[in-house]
């Protein structure tokens, strides 16, 4: 089913971000939902569908209905999606399909957790091991940075990607976060800071790793013909695709080729667009190696040249291909399944063209990529300022 031009992101919202000790995880989601509905000019009464992901900080099981119950609504379409960091983009796709199929009209999508203050730092780190294979990986004491470190090592070996290029990814995100009004990180960093920061799993240092934030994001999905009734300009869904190759690194078909390629090709095909049509991109950046790989897999750079584009500054807001203009997971926010949702929030805002001194110059077509697991579940979307 082609979703092209038929569906819009009608409104977007972010909770307070950083250390937010006065709020629960589901409360942060409610705050983001309220802000997304306000942004759309809609209310909870307009919502008849709810999608969310999962939580590792609060003892809830059926999180979709937990969120609906907390908001006091009774949707006719509701579910929890668990494809890790890929969840927000996948939820947008599933919401769009549900709306087009007539199952509901207006889907509220949210994700995020109180990762920073809702649990101890050690238990937060321990929780991350659950992505590892319990029987055949975890006996060897890996953890998420370790899995990505093995990908980084192999990628460097095959394509010549360097630590300096990866450091440039972290600096690019931080520079953008400093210009964002609601980013977790507020202090500037240099490439030397990244290269000299504490080693976590070689070749990744602490500044190559995403944040642990209290944060939630939300967006509203509805039919494109409702655009005239909204409070703000929507983002039009031009194309979207997902692809899932494995969960555990031991079962990954390759350490250098991932499902981003297939998810991207599906998104481009639906939109009738190609990489050259992309004005700016929000790429999942749980670790500095990841947006480099995604750029190359998505055709935004030749193989082995993504890192160089970051190093040359082409990915800055003023550059030829701005990437992660909110600071990304590395510097804006990361909270469980919530990380990728901010890419959708930020793309929608930049497409509107009202972001002042941090506005990208060309803002007709945005690419957003989310991935979950160990580059396991991939979802790519193209959003447009207008239908096309």
């Amino acid at each position, binding site marked *: 089913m082609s979703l092209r031009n038929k569906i819009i992101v009608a409104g977007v919202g972010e909770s307070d971000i950083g250390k937010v000790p006065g709020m629960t995880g589901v409360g942060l989601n409610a705050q983001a939902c309220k802000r997304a509905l306000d942004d759309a000019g809609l209310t909870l009464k307009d919502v008849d569908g709810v999608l969310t992901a999962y939580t590792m900080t609060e003892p809830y099981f059926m999180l979709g209905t937990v969120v609906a119950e907390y908001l006091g609504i009774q949707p006719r379409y509701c579910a929890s999606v668990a494809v890790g960091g890929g969840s927000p983009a996948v939820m947008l796709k599933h919401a769009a399909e549900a709306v087009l199929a007539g199952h509901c009209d207006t889907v509220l999508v949210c994700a995020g957790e109180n990762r920073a203050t809702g649990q101890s730092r050690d238990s937060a780190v321990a929780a991350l*091991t659950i992505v590892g294979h319990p*029987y*055949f990986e975890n006996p060897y004491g*890996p953890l998420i940075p370790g899995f990505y*470190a*093995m990908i980084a090592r192999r990628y460097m*070996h095959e394509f010549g990607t360097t630590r300096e290029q990866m450091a440039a990814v972290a600096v690019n995100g931080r520079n953008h976060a400093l210009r964002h009004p609601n980013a977790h990180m507020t202090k500037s960093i240099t490439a030397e800071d990244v290269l000299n920061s504490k080693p976590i*799993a*070689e070749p990744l240092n602490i500044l190559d790793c995403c944040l642990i934030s209290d944060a939630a994001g939300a967006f509203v999905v509805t039919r494109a013909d409702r655009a005239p009734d909204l409070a703000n300009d929507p983002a039009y869904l031009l194309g979207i695709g997902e692809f899932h190759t494995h969960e555990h690194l031991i079962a990954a078909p390759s350490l250098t080729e991932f499902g981003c390629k297939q998810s991207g090709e599906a998104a481009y095909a639906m939109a009738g667009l190609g990489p050259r049509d992309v004005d700016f991109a929000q790429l999942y950046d749980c670790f500095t190696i990841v947006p480099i790989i995604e750029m190359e897999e998505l055709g935004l750079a030749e193989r082995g040249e993504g890192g160089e584009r970051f190093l040359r500054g082409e990915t800055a807001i003023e550059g030829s291909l701005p990437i992660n203009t909110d600071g990304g997971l590395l510097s804006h926010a990361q909270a469980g399944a919530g990380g990728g949702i901010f890419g959708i929030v930020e793309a929608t805002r930049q497409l509107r063209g009202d972001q002042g001194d941090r506005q990208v110059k060309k803002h007709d077509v945005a690419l957003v990529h989310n991935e979950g697991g160990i580059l396991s579940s991939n979802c790519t979307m193209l959003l447009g300022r207008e239908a096309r």
Partner: protein
Amino acid sequence: MSGDLPAPLVNADSAPYWEGARDNKLLLQRCSDCGTLRFFPRYLCTACGSENTDWIEAAGRGTVHSFTVVHRAAFPEFQERTPYVVALIDLEEGPRMMTNIVGADALEVAIGDAVMVEFEDRGGDGAKVPQFRRA
């Protein structure tokens, strides 16, 4: 790496694998119909869908596909052993598995290094996990 690290979790899919490890044998599942070797163990063949399975003993030789040196572990029993090496090994027979690289020269490991299996006591009741050292 040593005996006070957690014992492997044994389940119905993997029981023969861990029984083999107790006898210092690295066992691989093989499809009885199409002969495809697979790792990790599971109920059916991912190549042909067959439910008929037997096990072979691997030679225990492999090559390092990638690795990391871990400095920050998730659990205290691993944190005590930092820095340690986690690696992906391509076995001579084909399948890829995760391991630690152990031995005095473990931290000097590189992609493409030849490695050889050995078995590490875990949990104190005879359970072992396969580990690899540079050959």
